[in-house]
């Protein structure tokens, strides 16, 4: 009935025509009369959104929805929308976000429950560029929020996350050939879309950077099989970029949040091998010790939660032991007064005490770890 209310006005539109119309309008929003086309497009998008949302009370007919979603795939509408998101009018951007969200979630009742939703499966295998273009939404302030919102929903799917992590242009094994083409043992060149996040986070305006960081965090913390492998294969590239771009960022927010995320990544059990490799490096410890001396308390505090991993490690590497021993007295003095006003943070106090004991009890000369 709602269907008739929406489309019964004599123009003979059917849901499957809408994606086609949208596609035609998108092609013209930049030419002469683009503003009018953008308005037309906005109307069509709003209609698509309403069908997807269904009537206020009740649900849409799943067959109608399936037709609509199929038609959206056929017209490659998702790609076009992602590509042009920043050019759309304000309300149309929000509608687009809702469309993505519903389309990526839609599953026909008869489909096997294990399958990915139709459109998502299509994108992951046949059109990974849709996800890449959504990431590029961070190139523009206008598209950052809607694109980021869609991405974070999509990234709940491990396959979708893999598509973004392993995008690497035309290189064989890149996700550009679809999810099944991905070769996880091949180190990344650093030119893929994932590596662009570092720049968005470090150089974007606050709104863009903060949204990009949230997505970045989701990518790196959600999938406990995918990410550890990825970080091990791309260890050098990843942590070099991470430490130079994010941890040393001149932006307070980027710096603080990325130190915190580093701690989370290292202390995640699934990243055990990554963690042990990370804390073996003297260079990493130096960066971290300097964070403890930052002049902003929250940076010191977040730095502490990385530092503790180095000290608590029972198999400290020789370079790490050397640095700690060289600074032993200073560290003991420093730590005994470190962030003293955190008096009700018992865990912190315990951990600080623990670190002091560990450092005090270190043998005077570095001992090669037994591992």
């Amino acid at each position, binding site marked *: 009935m709602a269907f008739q209310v929406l489309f019964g006005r004599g123009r003979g539109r059917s849901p499957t025509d809408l994606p086609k119309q949208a596609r035609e309008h998108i092609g013209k929003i930049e030419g002469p009369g683009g503003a009018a086309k953008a308005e037309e497009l906005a109307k069509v998008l709003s209609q698509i959104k309403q069908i997807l949302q269904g009537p206020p009370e009740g649900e849409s007919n799943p067959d109608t929805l399936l037709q609509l979603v199929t038609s959206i795939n056929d017209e490659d509408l998702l790609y076009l929308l992602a590509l042009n998101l920043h050019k759309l009018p304000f309300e149309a951007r929000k509608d687009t976000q809702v469309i993505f969200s519903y389309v990526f979630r839609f599953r026909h009742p008869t489909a096997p429950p294990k399958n990915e939703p139709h459109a998502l499966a299509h994108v992951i295998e046949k059109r990974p560029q849709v996800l890449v273009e959504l990431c590029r939404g961070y190139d523009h302030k206008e598209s950052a*929020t809607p694109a980021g919102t869609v991405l974070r929903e999509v990234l709940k799917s491990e396959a979708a996350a893999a598509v973004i992590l392993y995008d690497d242009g035309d290189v064989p094994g890149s996700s550009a050939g679809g999810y099944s083409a991905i070769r996880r043992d091949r180190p990344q060149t650093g030119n893929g879309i994932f590596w662009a996040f570092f720049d968005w986070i470090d150089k974007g305006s606050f709104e863009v950077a*903060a949204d990009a960081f949230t997505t970045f965090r989701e990518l790196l913390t959600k999938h406990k099989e995918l990410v550890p492998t990825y970080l091990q294969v791309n260890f050098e590239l990843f942590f070099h970029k991470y430490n130079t771009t994010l941890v040393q960022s001149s932006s307070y927010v980027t710096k603080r*949040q990325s130190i915190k995320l580093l701690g989370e990544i290292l202390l995640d059990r699934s990243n055990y091998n990554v963690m042990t490799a990370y804390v073996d490096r003297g260079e990493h410890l130096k960066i971290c010790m300097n964070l403890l001396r930052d002049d902003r*308390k*929250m940076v010191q505090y977040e730095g502490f939660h990385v530092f503790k991993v180095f000290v608590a490690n029972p198999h400290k590497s020789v370079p790490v032991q050397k640095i700690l021993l060289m600074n032993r007295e*200073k560290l003991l003095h420093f730590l005994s007064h470190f962030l003293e006003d955190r008096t009700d943070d018992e865990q912190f106090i315990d951990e600080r005490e623990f670190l002091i004991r560990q450092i005090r009890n270190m043998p005077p000369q570095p001992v090669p770890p037994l591992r």
Partner: protein
Amino acid sequence: MTDEGVADHYQVLEELGRGSFGVVYKAIEKATGETVAIKHIDLESSEDDIQEIQQEISVLSTCASSYVTQYKGSFLRGHKLWIVMEYLGGGSCLDLLKPGNFSEVHIAVICRELLLGLEYLHAEGKIHRDIKAANVLLSETGKVKLADFGVAAQLTHMKSQRNTFVGTPFWMAPEVIQQAGYDFKADIWSLGITAIEFALGEPPHANIHPMKVLFQIPKNPPPRLEGKFSKEFKDFIAQCLVKDPDHRPSARDLLKHRFIRSAGKVEALQELINRKQMWDAKQDRVKLPVFYQETLHNISPKNESDEWVFDTVRSVVVPRRGTVRSRKPSPAFVAEDAMRKLDVKDGPLQPITPQTVKKSTVRRQPSNAYQSHASVRRITSNGSPRASVSSKRPLQPDLSFGNSGSTTRLFRRVPSDHSNPELSPTLEEFKHNENRPPSIYQTPVEPTNKEAMIGRRLYNKAIEPSLDELHAQTATSSKRDALANLSDAFAYLNSVDPEGAYHLFRNIVTSVSQDSRLNQVILGGQNNAQPGPPPKTPVDGTPQGTVVINRERRAMSSVSVSSAASTNLPTPSSNLSPTKLLMSQENPHLLSHRRRRSAVPSDAGSVIAARSPEKGEREREREQRDREKEKLAAMEALRYPGQNAVPGMEHCKQITDLLYSRWTDGLMARWGAAGGRG
């Protein structure tokens, strides 16, 4: 995130007030000449909220409605986040209620506009969750706008529901309190309560403790408006306050209500704004006592020997410094540090230059200094240094957050009020400190004459906050160092010769006023030597709503005004004596200010838990304890609306608060299971 320079696009003017989590300034966008309001949030004083602030921004930035305060942008400056909003000169409805209650005519207009705003938000899948007079702002022309989206929710699916326990107790819908899952209808209930607030000046149950109200609202029959009001108005409120959300009408339904349909034009609301201006003009703005701000400047820029040694390569480290109050190391350290500095043989790690500084101070009052140091050492070795050497935190006068029920939110947000050095002091600690005289390690000179007192006041009120603010907003480390050094130098001057500070500024101001160009740019051309009545209060309108004008900042530019004011105010030195411990009366406010956004258990804890999964169990226990503490603090923070302590009777209020917190403590033990489903 490199948008340091964006701040230069704005000319920041006077402080409009202090809101729930930051200071709000009036400013002008240089390019357009447009007046805006800019909220400054000190991110360094908040633990884990950056993402939550970001959430608020994303809700705001996706609103485009003339019924919602327009978001214009946000950017970072040092560790302060600036949020630029539309400037609304009419002020909040809570402020406008101060001269008296609203008439039905006015209420109908405001309610209609609010319903239009809610209709928009709800269609967008947003729930405001904190509708109350304090969050309703008026433009100078009478346009009504919803503000403060600090706890707003964005639903991704139109039919989904929320469980989170947020809002302000008196205005909360029963289903929100019961956490049975709620949706847009919760805003309608709050609107009904707000309408009562407009008519009576306060929400129902305002005389009951907010914590108790949380039991009353679901249990009692819905409040009704009694008395000499029209049938339509009473019915409108009854419609809003239907306990079953399924039977409560939507915003769209209510727009058809007779009370709303007969409402007049928004221009009529200008009467409320005018009334407030008249009222302000008549008020003898009696200031609350101003408190001495204890300042400890302990750490000077570190010298090289203090850096880490990494092989032959010396690490480049930004020197740590302690002049900014928000990152002051604990007083115990300060004391120890100071003692070490006194010992010539000791401390190769200690900076050299400032030693003489401290010594000369000591020399002036040797016995005093000796005593205080000795006691510090003893306490330190006892292992419980904090209790008695904690310094007094500077407090903000003229705050009025305490008088409205504060918003309970899912996430803690610590305000930036310069007075917040401890990241999370326990309640006990706080109370403890409150009842003790400030102990200090470096006894500043007692101001002996009027000039010295003004000098000290000048330092505490104007110079130090300004330097702090500037420091907080400076990102470049070399500039930060320069400011730190300046700050240290001033601190020293203040401690040994406040009178000198007075004369210095006196002379500067005089010189400035004699140069026409400087006079115009810096002093705004005004003749600052006239003590007379304070300048006319500007109309305050802020996206925060519940703020008052704080003119302290402007006192800096007109020294003599503050000197006139200070004659009937307690002098800084009065606080040094335990018998005149005036601080305590503001402390509950400070606490509530600090904690008002704290709340109610959240899933934020899960992030912390991720830190060390091997300690999962302990983490959970800790979290539980933290929640208890936070709840306690939240309860402490909830205050009767509209009830400021009567001057001189502050201690009574404090006792009441203490008793309440004990009572609620027991309450929580029984009630602890409730709450906390994100």
